[in-house]
């Protein structure tokens, strides 16, 4: 049974800023569908006493002390910037807003 539609894949591609051809959308749709089906199988065996797991390692509370460490210089920070000005990253004007 198909869970994933081509519209959903096109929507996701748009959100992720990935340009896909119609052929790619079609093939990804069926691939994603297989993945969703496989995960659905796992969900079948998960009983209510199995908590949702976001990490495979049984660790928690891994913290850092609030102590200042090494920083980059502005030059290092900007070294890989395609463009910079006034010590800052230069980006094209974006039609949109801060989130």
């Amino acid at each position: 049974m198909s869970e994933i539609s081509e519209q959903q894949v096109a929507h996701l591609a748009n959100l992720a800023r990935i340009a896909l051809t119609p052929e790619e959308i079609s093939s990804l749709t069926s691939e994603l569908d297989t993945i969703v089906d496989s995960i659905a199988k796992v969900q079948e065996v998960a009983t209510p006493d199995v908590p949702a797991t976001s990490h495979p390692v049984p660790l928690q509370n891994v913290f850092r002390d609030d102590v200042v460490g090494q920083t980059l210089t502005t030059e290092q920070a900007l070294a890989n910037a395609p463009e910079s000005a006034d010590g800052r990253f230069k980006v094209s004007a974006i039609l949109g807003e801060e989130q």
Partner: protein
Amino acid sequence: MARDRVMDFDKALELFEPVLGFEVHVELNTKTKMFSAAPNGFGDAPNTNISPVCLGLPGSLPVVNEQAVRYSISLGLALGCSIAPTSRFARKNYFYPDLAKNYQISQFDEPIAFEGQVDVELADGSVRTIPIERAHMEEDAGKLTHVGGATGRIQGAEYSLVDYNRAGVPLVEIVTKPIFGAEHDAPELAKAYVSTIRDIVIALGISDARMERGNLRCDANVSLRPRGQEKLGTRTETKNVNSLRSVERAVRYEIQRQAAILADGGTITQETRHWHEDTGTTSAGRPKSDADDYRYFPEPDLLPVVPSPELIEELRAALPEAPAIRRRRLKETWGFTDLEFQDVANGGLVAEVELTIAAGASPQAARKWWTGEISRLANVQGVEATSLVSPENVAALARLVEDGTLTDKLARQVLEGVVAGEGAPEEVVEKRGLAVVSDDGALIAAIDEALAAQPDVLAKIQDGKVQAAGAVIGAVMKAMRGQADAARVRELILERAAQP
């Protein structure tokens, strides 16, 4: 841009019930960022407080700042929230250059704190309880400067410059549930709520809470529903209203604007709106769209936060008293009348007055400066009083008046200098040469000169008409450029006139 029509506030309230909601972002004043050891600083040169994590460079991994977690739990407890036994970070995915990673690390369905309430006191002394839905941890975004275009805003900009110093600064976002029943008090309640949150984080010592620096930012949600209707109306979210005064004005404006549309049979668009301080209006920002699908998922680079009951109880025990109780205590300690304290509280200046007293000023001096000259200057400039001058500088100013270095009049000039960025009060006194001339020798020289210039006045004084001294006082004060104590000058004039 055409001005929106607005309806009279009272008329709007007659027809509609306003429902409010707030999202307040609090920047924590930790030494380092939320997920990296880069400094959390303000006002530094662009892109200096930066680590590979702040830039989302390949291979860099975030690690949670323990202090930020403790602060967040304390804030959650102060908001009367439950602390989640297990809390997780999540990625909020979006494309905007304010974060280099293309996602913000935030919390989604497992916030650190949830289900609380905050008591907010209005000017008339009544108390409203604001229901809190959640308080969650996240990272702040970098700062964009739009270059080109007429207004420096994003519309018409040619390009933007990004400073990532603020990217990764720890934030707690406090989200209320819908607030009903505010009615005519809605604008005042909005201001009082943000002011209370500000008092709480200052009392906790977890944020500098300076709204003009963006340490505390408020998004105000407003919707209206016709009287008698159960269903909530469509809401707008006015973003980044960054002073207490603006929060009040923005809520009032949105109520009036939405009422005018609804009364005309129109519909409200669900959208973000921008607040314009100069015109006191809001304008349409971005409508809700497909792009608002943030595809949250658990942050794979970070592990769950599981605060122990012992830690929670330790932090609970260390909480400062609740704002309402604190206000009553402060009023008593400071010996303020009801009216005096209300003045301070309504101006959102309780914390400032407290800090000023802690820095050495008398309660009355602290109160007079903040509610008097500083508030007046703030009004003239259309900014928040707290943005003009630090409590330490106000205390220093009060000290200079107390020890006779400055008269009240000179002190106001010094304050203007401090506000203009000329330095601490002592420095302004020095630079502007404003101290009171307490050197009797200099005063006597000026008095003798003035008396010699006005022999008829001298004769009158010697005749016993002491009120004639006023003319000489004026001349001496002028010669001293106002920097003399008039009472002392008068004393000396009478002394000199009495001498043969």
